[in-house]
């Protein structure tokens, strides 16, 4: 994965698979760490599956016996002197957190986070998504699909291409992609 935004898209896909109705993606950054969290209220995992979920030979998919999504982000975080954590409770939900040293030479760029969020909103599969972007010293940016739907009213679906393009521009205009001279 060339961008952390692609990892986020990949990890969030698991939340949809888990039939979550509420998914939250949080990107936080300060001069020390860039932290990504994906929080959902999906079906969760039992203790036994959770223990081996970072093993690439564990997967929920049926087409292949390998699952690289979680191992990849974990490896990337550890390479960047960050940390990785995943908490899950069966039938309650899952929270995945990965942090990366902001100025680490091996940290992939955050990349096109707007495109990632819009890719998810284009096909919400019945879930609501909240995206929070918090940079130290800046006003947090929050986008919630519930709020967008309220603004749109009942007649215009949120996955209408014109609406999606609007949301992409909205995110791009409202978030800053650098901190303390480091580009994110």
């Amino acid at each position: 994965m060339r961008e952390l935004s692609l990892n986020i898209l990949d990890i969030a896909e698991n939340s949809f698979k888990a039939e979550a109705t509420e998914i939250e993606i949080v990107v936080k950054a300060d001069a020390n760490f860039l932290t990504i969290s994906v929080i959902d209220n999906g079906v969760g995992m039992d203790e036994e599956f959770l223990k081996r979920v970072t093993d690439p030979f564990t997967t929920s998919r049926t087409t292949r016996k390998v699952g690289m999504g979680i191992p990849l982000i974990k490896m990337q975080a550890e390479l960047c002197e960050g940390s990785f954590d995943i908490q899950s409770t069966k039938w309650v939900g899952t929270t995945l957190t990965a942090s990366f040293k902001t100025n680490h030479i091996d940290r992939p760029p955050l990349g096109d986070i707007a495109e990632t969020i819009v890719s998810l909103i284009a096909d919400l599969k019945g879930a609501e998504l909240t995206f929070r972007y918090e940079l130290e010293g800046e006003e947090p940016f929050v986008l919630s699909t519930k709020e967008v739907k309220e603004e749109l009213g009942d007649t215009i679906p949120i996955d209408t291409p014109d609406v999606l393009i609007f949301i992409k521009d909205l995110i791009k205009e409202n978030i800053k992609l650098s901190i303390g001279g480091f580009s994110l």
Partner: protein
Amino acid sequence: MKSIADIKAIRDKMQSEIILRDSDETNEIRVVVGMATCGISAGARPVFNTLIDEVAKRKLTNVKVTRTGCLGMCKLEPIVEVFVPNQEKVTYVHVNSEKAMDIIVNHIVNGNVCKDYLIKDED
């Protein structure tokens, strides 16, 4: 700078087109992009977003672009499947943004399958 309230302008503009859209449901063309780890790392996200952009630009109100998981042919990703009502499914492989544009123009708009982008024997 845009704010969420600006979306009302889009809503008002689109409200007039709604009746057309609603009557079109049975003719819906579905374009499905494989977006598991394999697809995403091979470049599915720009393909997906190009499809959305083209559908918006050409005002194709009967086209729905959606995501799916792993289609089981990871080395052929990014994979795009096109479902036109009453026609056989068409599977495109190794798709990039340029090919995605061609698929919209030739296949979706003009009804000609892009034969060069299908699975080949050597795949």
